[in-house]
């Protein structure tokens, strides 16, 4: 067994207050690697059919990738997995911060929580001890207060993942928080943690970089560092707005290389895309039913962000550092010090709500971090509520007198507080997620619901890039933007490593993206399989923007695992893992073909204004071809029974 993996996993039964270790055989690593692969294999075998996502039979997993903990650049990601209370199927959420390497540092590749504690607890793992400790004093605290309290209690080597009030109250889109506000946000796994009355997981961790012991990893780290931006950034903020305008007005699309976006990404993180995405029609406006002319990109420009940035922030083992600690005055009182909001907050709570109040984005982002709410789903829920209120589907007596209107940030702030505590009719309604809320309010509200399979949609409009649409309705975690899309695929540069991955031309007509072509399907499949390898390795998606040839993920995995696999063979492992995720859904009665998006986002009816004007595409056909290229049934999305890819207990 190579030193890069632990060779065992830990189970903690919160009902019986016991724990045990199980060995992981070398053949298992060869089949599924670690991280995502380990999670889906173990959970497929242990979560019984019909398990309530918020009941004792669900299992919550914290897993670490093969390369995590080895000092490899961009390897500071951990993955949380379980049965999702939003989709009732496979759920996972990937997160940076400082927590990831602490899992393997405690001698395991994953920690799996079973059962339900009789009272609030937290689990502290240190020096080969597993302690289940009372958390009654922590219950009710927000996630940042919890982290601070536990940090003082257990010292500077404690790495802490916790839930806020949203997780405690089993809000279906609650996330899990670490390092002062980095969230494993999607799939509602914070609610699963809350349902187990598990307030926090605390791991002892002493920093180290054992990469020097593994031949090849140190050299690859040097190579990766050589691509990182150096010196002072002087990309003018205004140039991003112009770039957005130029890109949206060009007939042809230009193939992007990840190196082109590194300096702005290093300076402003995901927010570097605010203006480009808004002007280009990618970001939603007024609950997706508006257009860019209704919201100026200046209101969320990097020019306004720059003065708030006080200190660069990087996740552990990240040479890029796309985060920032910021300071902003909100209401004239003490300045708020917080993480810089992500693109999803600026657009989800900005353009999508027609909110121009710049400081409110920091306040709302901080609030989501503290409450432990997935900002994407939360923004969707707020926009849905405003639309329903405006159209008479929610009445003032149901809002407690709160007038739900566009452009008022306090509406979002108040609703987030209500949602996290399931307060009143509206708080309880929206805490169930947009899909369930729409089912409660009736068919007329469907028009305002933007979700897929129960998961609220991220802020990327598939009318501008249909590859997003395909992933929204095809991936086993529907409504996910971090699998693959056109630009993402271009940056992955898989054609340099994988024999069958198509190489996009350097320039091509934008209309190519709308074609139900074999090339588009192959690119979507390749991106999807590669993402599984990233999640098995513990590598950040933004690190993968360097390109497969420059990042060297396949070579690093071979070095770390003493394997001699080709990139094509790794992609087959990715296919196997995607099939296991899909099989999990089928096993739990979730039919892949049922995932769909609001017809508006397929261009039905076509948009009359903006960059998406007149755009339509054959999403059903594109999904069929995607599934076919995946090796699955093109109508049902079911992996064939009996083939290696479909193996799991069902």
């Amino acid at each position: 067994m190579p030193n890069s993996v632990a060779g065992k996993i830990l189970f903690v039964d919160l009902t019986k207050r016991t724990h045990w270790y199980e060995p992981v055989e070398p053949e298992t690593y060869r089949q599924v690697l670690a991280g995502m692969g380990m999670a889906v294999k173990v959970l497929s075998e242990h979560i019984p059919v019909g398990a309530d996502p918020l009941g004792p039979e669900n299992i919550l997993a914290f897993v670490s990738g093969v390369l995590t903990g080895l000092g490899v650049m961009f390897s500071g990601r951990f993955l949380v997995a379980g049965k999702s209370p939003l989709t009732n199927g496979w759920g996972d959420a990937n997160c940076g911060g400082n927590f990831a390497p602490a899992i393997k540092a405690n001698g395991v590749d994953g920690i799996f929580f079973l059962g339900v504690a009789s009272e609030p607890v937290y689990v502290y793992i240190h020096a080969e001890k597993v302690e289940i400790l009372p958390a009654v004093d922590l219950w009710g605290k927000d996630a940042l207060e919890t982290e601070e309290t536990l940090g003082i209690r257990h010292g500077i080597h404690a790495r802490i993942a916790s839930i806020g009030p949203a997780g405690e109250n089993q809000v279906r889109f609650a996330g899990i928080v670490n390092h002062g506000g980095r969230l494993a946000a999607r799939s509602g796994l914070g609610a699963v943690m809350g349902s187990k009355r598990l307030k926090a997981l605390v791991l002892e961790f002493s920093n180290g970089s054992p990469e020097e012991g593994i031949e090849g990893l140190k050299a690859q780290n040097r190579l990766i560092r050589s691509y990182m931006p150096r010196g002072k950034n002087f990309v003018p903020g205004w140039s991003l707005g112009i770039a957005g305008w130029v890109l949206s007005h060009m007939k042809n699309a230009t193939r992007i290389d990840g190196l082109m976006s590194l300096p702005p990404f290093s300076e402003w993180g995901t927010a570097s895309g605010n203006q480009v995405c808004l002007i280009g029609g990618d970001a939603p406006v007024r609950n997706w039913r508006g257009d860019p002319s209704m919201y100026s990109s200046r209101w969320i420009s990097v020019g306004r962000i720059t003065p708030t940035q006080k200190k660069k922030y990087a996740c552990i083992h990240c040479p890029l550092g796309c985060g920032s600690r910021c300071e902003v005055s909100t209401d004239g009182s003490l300045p708020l010090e917080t993480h810089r909001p992500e693109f999803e907050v600026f657009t989800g709570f900005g353009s999508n709500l027609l909110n121009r109040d710049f400081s409110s984005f920091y306040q709302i982002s901080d609030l989501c971090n503290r409450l432990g709410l997935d900002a994407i789903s939360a923004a969707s829920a707020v926009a849905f509520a405003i639309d329903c209120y405006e159209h008479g589907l929610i009445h003032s007596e149901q809002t407690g007198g709160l007038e739900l209107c566009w452009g008022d940030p306090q509406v979002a702030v108040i609703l987030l507080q209500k949602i996290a505590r399931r307060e009143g009719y509206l708080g309880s309604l929206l805490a169930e997620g947009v899909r369930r809320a729409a089912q409660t309010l009736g068919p007329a509200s469907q028009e305002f619901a933007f979700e897929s399979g129960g998961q609220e949609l991220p802020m990327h409009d598939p009318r501008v890039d249909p590859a997003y649409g395909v992933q929204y309705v095809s991936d086993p975690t529907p409504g996910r933007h971090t699998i693959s899309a056109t630009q993402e695929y271009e940056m992955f540069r898989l054609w340099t490593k994988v024999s069958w991955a198509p190489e996009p031309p350097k320039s091509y007509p934008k209309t190519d993206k709308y074609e139900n072509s074999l090339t588009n399907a192959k690119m979507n499949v390749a991106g999807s399989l590669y993402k599984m390898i990233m999640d098995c390795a513990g590598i950040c998606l933004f690190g993968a923007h360097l390109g497969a040839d420059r990042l060297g993920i396949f070579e690093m995995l071979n070095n770390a695992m003493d394997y001699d696999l080709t990139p094509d063979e790794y992609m087959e492992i990715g296919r196997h893992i995607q099939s296991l995720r899909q099989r999990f859904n089928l096993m739990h009665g979730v039919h892949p073909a049922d995932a769909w998006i609001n017809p508006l986002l397929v261009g039905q009816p076509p948009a009359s204004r903006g960059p998406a004007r007149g755009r339509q595409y054959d999403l059903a056909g594109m999904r069929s071809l995607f599934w076919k290229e995946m090796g699955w049934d093109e109508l049902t999305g079911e992996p064939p029974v009996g083939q290696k890819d479909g193996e799991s207990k069902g």
Partner: protein
Amino acid sequence: MIHIRVIAPFESTAMEGREECEVHEGSTIHQLIVQLGFPLVANIIPVTVNGAQVDHGCHLKEGDLVVFLMPYAGG
């Protein structure tokens, strides 16, 4: 002549889809843009050489990696 690598959001018949190209030793970025037939707008697009941002009067040397910047529309 020196050999450099250029990554840019433009097509160039001189590069024929490759990243590598030959330019006169000491060429500036402005001269590189002309030599490769890039559009004039390239003269105002921020550029890095070996990861460090430079102005377009920067002189190139053997083995340099020149990247014209373009924001990623995602996140």
